[in-house]
């Protein structure tokens, strides 16, 4: 896990979409939001959770790995950038490769766009816009130690297993203490978290 990163805590999300509005204000892609909300149990609960790019670390981001145009840059500090406008061919390989359902294609522009962890802010030590404004702390930006100091006993996961594949991510999720299963953004069931089979 990278030093300072986003931690997603679905237990704190109130579905207000401040993150979505704040993302639109980000100068990287002003006017368009690169974050969305999922409603995990619609009809029986108001539960929601924000989906941001997980900035996969190992294997190197699947979106970047499959990009035929080498348009997706992963910086030295582990941030998976959105596609380079001068290289992206809008083929949507990245969309198909991402296990979390994050990258989006602007079909008219033939351009992939995604969360780049507000690189214009984080490069200067500022929190990304979504985590800055999140009224509840469902999106938290900092180190694991800072998070645990603020929320004693909190546990996080940065490794997710999808069938045969394991993905370690730069962004981490807070693991609900009392629940062992929850859907992953994009609809695939989580099988294993931090090496533990959560189906049992």
């Amino acid at each position, binding site marked *: 896990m990278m030093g300072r990163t986003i931690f997603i805590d679905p237990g704190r999300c109130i579905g*207000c*979409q401040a993150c979505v509005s704040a993302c639109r204000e980000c*100068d990287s892609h002003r006017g368009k939001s690169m974050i969305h909300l999922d409603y995990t149990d619609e009809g029986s609960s108001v539960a929601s959770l924000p989906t941001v790019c997980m900035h996969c670390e190992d294997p190197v981001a699947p979106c970047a790995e499959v990009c035929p145009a080498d348009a997706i840059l992963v910086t030295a500090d582990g941030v998976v950038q959105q596609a380079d406008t001068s290289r992206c061919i809008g083929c949507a390989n990245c969309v198909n490769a991402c296990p979390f359902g994050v990258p989006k294609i602007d079909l008219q522009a033939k351009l992939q766009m995604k969360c780049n962890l507000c690189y*214009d802010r984080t*490069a*200067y030590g500022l*929190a990304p816009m979504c985590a*800055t404004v999140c009224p*509840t702390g469902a999106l938290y930006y900092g180190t694991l130690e800072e998070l645990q100091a603020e929320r004693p006993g909190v546990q996080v996961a940065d490794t997710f297993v999808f069938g045969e594949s394991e993905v370690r991510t730069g962004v981490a999720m807070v693991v609900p203490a009392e629940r062992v299963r929850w859907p992953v953004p994009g609809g695939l069931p989580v099988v294993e978290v931090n090496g533990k089979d959560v189906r049992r």
Partner: protein
Amino acid sequence: MTADPRAADGRTAVPLDPSLAPPGTRGFRDAGGIPADRWHADQNGETLVPTHCCFCGVQCGMYLRVDHGGKVFGVEPRNHDINRMRLCPKGINAYQQVNHPDRLTAPLMRRSRDEDLREVSWDEALDFTVSEIKRIQQAHGRDAFGVLGGASLFSEKTYLVGKFARVALRTRHVDYNGRLCMVSAAGANKLAFNIDRAGNPFADILLTDCLLLAGANVGECFPVLTQYVWGARDRGATLIVVDPRETAVARTADIHVALKSGTDSAFFNSVLNVVIEEGLTDEAYLAAHATGWEEVKAEVAQYPPSRAAEICGVPAEQIVQVARAFARAPKAMAFHARGIEHHTQGVENCLSVINLCTATGHIGKPGAGYGTLTGQGNGQGGREHGQKADLLPGGRSILNEEHRRQICEIWGIEESELPAAGTSMMEMVWQMQRREIRGLIGICNNPFVSLPNYAVVKEGYDTTEFHAQFDFFLSETAANAHVVFPVTIWAEDEGVMANAEARVVKHNKAQEPPAGVRTDTWVMCEIARRLGAGDKFAFGSSREVFDELRRASAGTIIDYSGITYERLEETGGISWPCPSTDHPGTPRLFEDGTTYHADGKIHMQVVEWHPPADPYDDAHPLTLTTGRTVAHFLSGNQTRRLGALVEQTPRPWAEIHPAHGFRNGEPVRVVTRRGSEVFPALVTEAIRPDTVFIPYHWPVPTAANALTIDALDPRSKIPEYKVCACRIEHAAEIDEVPAPPVAPGHVAYPETQVSRTDPLPPTAPQGRGTSERS
């Protein structure tokens, strides 16, 4: 409090200085070089003006981003200690109102409602208004003209509304839209403590061991406060939520009491009953600090959990659970909002919560106390300085001779000239229906959406001979007026607001208003001058009004005399009472155990539960309740024009339980004794099966308030928005559901009857004025 190093004087935008930027703000322009990418090209020359959000009673600090040309073009989170950078979606998008194409930029007028509104000069609009005021008052008496203010206005302006009505118009009829908000809590607080404000600052939430939220949908109405709620929970506090719906905060509560709307006082009486039965009262505190305890004890004996469970529709065990959790906690706090206040027994509901806090000794300590969460930005300040029908500045009573004399001295008028108490907002509409009030000036309010029983409201306004409205967008109510005065938006003037903690904060000016737009202050003063009272209204700025307000409040409980603009900028906010410029303010009340009653005690009040005003029968067996959604604010006049918020919540819905057999999205007709409307169904188990919920931010034909009842609490005169009898039916046609307005940037708007006499200048933004929109 955190000093804000970037505070401006309110008139000059602050140049960007990275060395002064608090963590998280945009101070990186020269901070070590710019990355070689394309994302920073537009940062040069940007200025940040520190101010606060215009919307709810939390009053989050924010910076408005101002470009080279002096125009507001964005928002940046601000590390103010109220919100610590956090903002909700309304706050993030608020800046888009400032230069919105729908802004009114010239006065609109028509001489009769048969005509369309047309743009006129300021002189023509003011002359017509003044001649109509004179005509109506000469023919029918001074009280035939009324004024309705708003709690979104700065406190300086709300002070001026009261003075304008009583000194310039000399009418007793002045009230404001805070009447629809937290007057029940205000009434209860006055009865119990003789002070009308919350007892504790928000920061105390982090110190509590048990947090009780009653009828307070914090997640949607005050999202930024959720960080305090979660903070308390992180430290092990028990969270109790009393709400008929499973709100986002209720979902994570230790105890969620999904009681039937309209039964709150029975529930809280029963909780107190259990507290007494289990010997959990704080008898020492009661003996030293309270009166009326024996009477309250006798009354709550009538509410054993078995009976209350039947009334409230919740398990009796849950009542016991709540009583034990609240009373056994070393420190407990109770916050309530419109959920228990919007009732014909709103005052009693609040009193039943105060009784519980008092009996358990949870008052006046860090982490222990009570509060009401005010819905409007200046919901607290808007009621403090004379905008209410029965109040003079400083919370003085208009019925009290000494109070009247004091104010007349400051205003320079004879006591005989000061009118008597007026009537409440809804009662004024009834008087308009009866032609007792024949002329009205509305200042930044939108009763066509926000008052209950729309048919009555429409008839009242249609009956009125003359109606003028101040606003910056053409609201549904303004579209009905004879004269519409285009006034400034919050970012175009300076002034103070008091948030739900009674913390006074300063808003700063970020840009000049568009040509043709005047401040509300200027318009009121100009009308007063033309009515011959100019010497009493010689105000050139908000600061001058604030200085008079400070003097007018000196010596009262609501004492602002020690609060200055300069101190507010240095401190980030001061809670009243603040009687001198070296006084630090009063964030927490009753720390020494004394209240503001002459005997220093809490006056506990007997509360007897009674059923809601609109009876259930076979034709109307369900409960209709109304409320807010996170993306919209009050009548929606502001937020229904902002693309991101419209996209988030394009239209209202009827939230119903799956037990009724409807499919999600299916059209459902909701019928009450006032009428019926069709909404798409939102089918969810997160609501009681006997309850239907509709958010109220939209006008007819999907106005929740076309269905609600205009029954009032006899003391606070707040309408009973939160409960009326209804039924639901299948609606035949899907196309009965109005299509959502989805245009980005601004939304389609109902017929507005505007015509333009002059063509738009070539530089005018597209869509300026409502007739220019497709």
